[in-house]
């Protein structure tokens, strides 16, 4: 019954979404009064999809083996948290989560949005429902998560052990909040283009959504990177894998949008560009979803599925993005640009930021899809790997990081003050860092070296906007900006340290043998069997020391029985200045064990920086929402005026 209730809720939500679509068309033809119900329907539609998803969680929590999806992805012996997480650790469940977030975002837009005109809001809610309808249809026609299996088997097939990790419980939903949160920006842009109301008010309505989605994307990417780092056991934090790129591309577009939207909100300028970015950001989310879910590109994530589903998703992508682009092409000409600005101004700084981010986005996009194009045209197979991305995107990112220090110091419209003078101290720090790396480590490559230098400069430059202000009266958004920009410096330092000073040791060791890695002496004590709830393992005991004090690390090779899989559980010890990362591999014939050891100085700063960037976003969002609340009264009057106009 639970599964049927979930399916029924899904059908009802789809019907309401279809109704919202017709309401939107009615409203756009002038019958705004009829469409007053739009907000209410959007809220009910969101609630229904939430119920549907709750039913799926329930089915998984109870391990209901008469539901095919549970049989394929769960097992009664699995720890409870992974039983629940298994609901979205598969194709159908994750698509239901996707559309649920989309519908709930629509419901929140209906509940809270007071800033746009009613016509634009109705058009945006209609657009949001149209998006949801396509994905409801996809679930109901091509991948029903509630399909029954008869007769029900006695046991499920289990969940990929790599996914049996707390990382799984948070990483995909976090990313999805980000991906799908951008849908609201998309719908608001489409709605405003439809009603010809692209203005500063729209930008202010869109901004919290973009910020919110961007925070989740930042957290999701950071968490995913750390998860890959400790769970896959390869010791790297970013592999330029197509699926990683699929999450990076919406982030790059959203980051650009986050900055350009301020220009539109403050100065009414960059209208067409900002609308384009809003469309592109969510389009990149859909491209990402398609690439991941169609299994079209070879990737470690390897979610292979049948071509029918791939075709369906591609059709949705083409229709939605195509329609938005057509709308943009038709309406773009009528968009009047707002207040002009001079060559040296906050606006032009943000334009440069957008240009560089767009070029990086283009580089990642081309690199991800280039193998596909080459094979389509010439039949030749090739792959684009990390060297290309690092070589092309690395220097661009460094230039951008250098400019991040300048942009926030510029004033709107025109800058007459000698701004560069303020940057004397940060620039000196940057040069000092450069000189220190040349003296201390003459052998390191140029990109990490410049990375240290830019990180030192930016760490100082990023907090300049806070100087000379009363900290309590500085807007939260300014604090947020400073924290996020400081986070870039922190992450950059971590990446540079990791690239320049990582030491690696791969060796076969017998019990008692000592291996050196970086400043550490690691001794293999013993290898013993151990067991968990649904796995058995071989566990090594490693004694590590540098100078004084000894620590014990216990890396494992785990064997899961349902499904039969072997995973490597790295043992990682974190210090203030780096991580000791250890892996145990296969035994050799002579009683030795393969050991892989890394000393990674300051590697944790990469993720700490990511977390700071997200925290900066959260501060900015809190600041914006607080201001919105304070202005609500005035806004409500404003809105009423429009309504009765």
């Amino acid at each position, binding site marked *: 019954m639970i599964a049927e209730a979930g399916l029924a809720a899904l059908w009802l939500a789809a019907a309401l979404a279809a109704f919202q679509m017709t309401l939107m068309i009615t409203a756009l033809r002038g019958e705004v009064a009829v469409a007053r119900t739009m907000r209410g329907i959007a809220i009910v539609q969101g609630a229904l999809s939430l119920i549907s998803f709750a039913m799926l969680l329930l089915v998984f929590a109870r391990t209901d083996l008469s539901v095919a999806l549970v049989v394929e992805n769960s097992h009664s012996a699995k720890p409870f948290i992974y039983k629940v997480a298994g609901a979205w650790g598969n194709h159908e469940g994750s698509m239901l989560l996707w559309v649920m977030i989309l519908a709930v975002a629509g419901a929140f837009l209906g509940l809270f949005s007071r800033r746009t005109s009613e016509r634009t809001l109705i058009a945006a809610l209609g657009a949001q429902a149209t998006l949801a309808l396509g994905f409801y249809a996809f679930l109901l026609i091509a991948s029903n998560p509630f399909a029954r299996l008869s007769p029900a088997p006695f046991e499920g097939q289990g969940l990929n052990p790599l996914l049996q990790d707390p990382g799984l419980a948070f990483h995909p939903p976090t990313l999805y909040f980000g991906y799908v949160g951008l849908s609201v920006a998309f719908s608001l842009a489409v709605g405003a283009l439809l009603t010809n109301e692209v203005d500063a008010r729209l930008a202010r309505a869109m901004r919290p959504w973009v910020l919110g989605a961007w925070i989740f994307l930042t957290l999701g990417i950071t968490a995913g990177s750390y998860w890959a780092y400790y769970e896959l056991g390869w010791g790297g934090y970013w592999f330029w894998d197509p699926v990683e790129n699929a999450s990076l591309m919406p982030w790059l577009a959203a980051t650009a949008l986050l900055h350009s939207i301020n220009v539109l909100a403050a100065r009414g300028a960059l209208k*067409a560009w900002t609308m*384009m970015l809003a*469309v*592109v950001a969510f*389009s990149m989310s859909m*491209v990402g979803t*398609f690439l991941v879910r*169609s299994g*079209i590109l*070879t990737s470690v994530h390897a979610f292979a599925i049948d*071509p029918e589903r*791939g*075709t369906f998703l*591609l059709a949705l*992508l*083409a229709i939605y*993005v*195509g329609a938005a*682009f*057509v709308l*943009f*092409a038709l309406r*773009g*000409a009528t*968009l009047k640009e707002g207040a002009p600005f001079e060559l040296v101004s906050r606006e032009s700084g943000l334009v440069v930021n957008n240009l560089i981010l767009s070029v990086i986005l283009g580089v990642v996009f081309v690199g991800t*899809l280039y193998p*596909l*194009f080459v*094979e*389509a045209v010439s039949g030749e197979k090739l792959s684009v790997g990390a060297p290309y991305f690092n070589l092309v995107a690395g220097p661009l990112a460094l230039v951008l990081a250098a400019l991040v220090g300048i942009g926030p110091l510029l004033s709107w419209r025109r800058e007459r003050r000698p701004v560069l003078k303020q940057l004397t101290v940060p620039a000196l720090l940057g040069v000092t860092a450069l000189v220190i790396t040349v003296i201390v480590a003459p052998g390191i490559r140029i990109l990490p070296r410049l990375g240290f230098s830019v990180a030192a400069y930016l760490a100082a430059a990023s907090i300049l906007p806070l100087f000379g202000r009363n900290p309590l009266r500085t807007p939260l958004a300014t604090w947020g900006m400073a924290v996020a920009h400081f986070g870039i410096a922190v992450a950059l330092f971590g990446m540079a340290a990791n690239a320049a000073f990582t030491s690696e040791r791969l060796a076969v060791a017998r019990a008692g043998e000592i291996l050196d890695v970086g400043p550490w002496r690691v001794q293999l004590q013993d290898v013993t069997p151990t067991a968990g709830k649904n796995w058995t393992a071989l566990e090594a005991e490693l004694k590590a020391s540098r100078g004084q004090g000894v620590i014990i690390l216990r890396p494992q090779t785990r064997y899961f029985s349902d499904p039969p899989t072997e995973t490597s559980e790295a043992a990682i010890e974190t210090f203030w200045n780096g991580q000791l990362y250890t892996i145990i591999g296969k035994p050799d014939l002579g009683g030795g064990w393969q050991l892989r050891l890394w000393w990674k100085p300051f590697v944790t700063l990469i993720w700490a920086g990511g977390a700071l960037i997200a925290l900066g976003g959260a501060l900015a969002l809190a600041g914006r929402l607080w201001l919105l609340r304070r202005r609500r009264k005035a806004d409500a009057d404003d809105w009423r005026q429009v309504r009765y106009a």
Partner: protein
Amino acid sequence: MSRAVRFAPLALLLLVVAALIWRLATPADTSVHSKLEGKPVPAFDLGPALDAKPPLSSRDLATGGPRIVNIFASWCVPCIGEVKVLRQLQARGVAIDGIAVRDRPEDLAAFLQVNGDPYERIGGDPQSQVQISLGSSGVPESFVIDGKGIVRYQHIGPIEAADVPMILAKLEQAK
């Protein structure tokens, strides 16, 4: 904003969608083609795997007609099934030689006794050296070699009954 600029995103989208449709319509060929195809067999000279059979060297392969070289072993379970198919091929006049990997003469003799013997010559490769030089990573594997001793096709895994028409076609092409 000029018309061309406004329609550029749409054009880019169409291009990308076209490439993605192409990929969905023609799934990626994930098979790996042998690097040796089109190249002569690396020179080797193996001793006899058992006394009753003549040994195999690379010179024995350039005899004017296409042949199959089958890498197998008596300890290899899929090879048991494959021998039946090889005997069908032999019955159709296909010349087949074998390379027995890491095998013992008495085990090999018993294997041929029980399962039948489709081989003209069998070379013994006790340390897998020739197997590795041929780019073979396991048993069974088979090579179609033309009359000039050039490798035309490498088959990984056992030749199944369903593969027979394909193998015959490869032999025909190698004539």
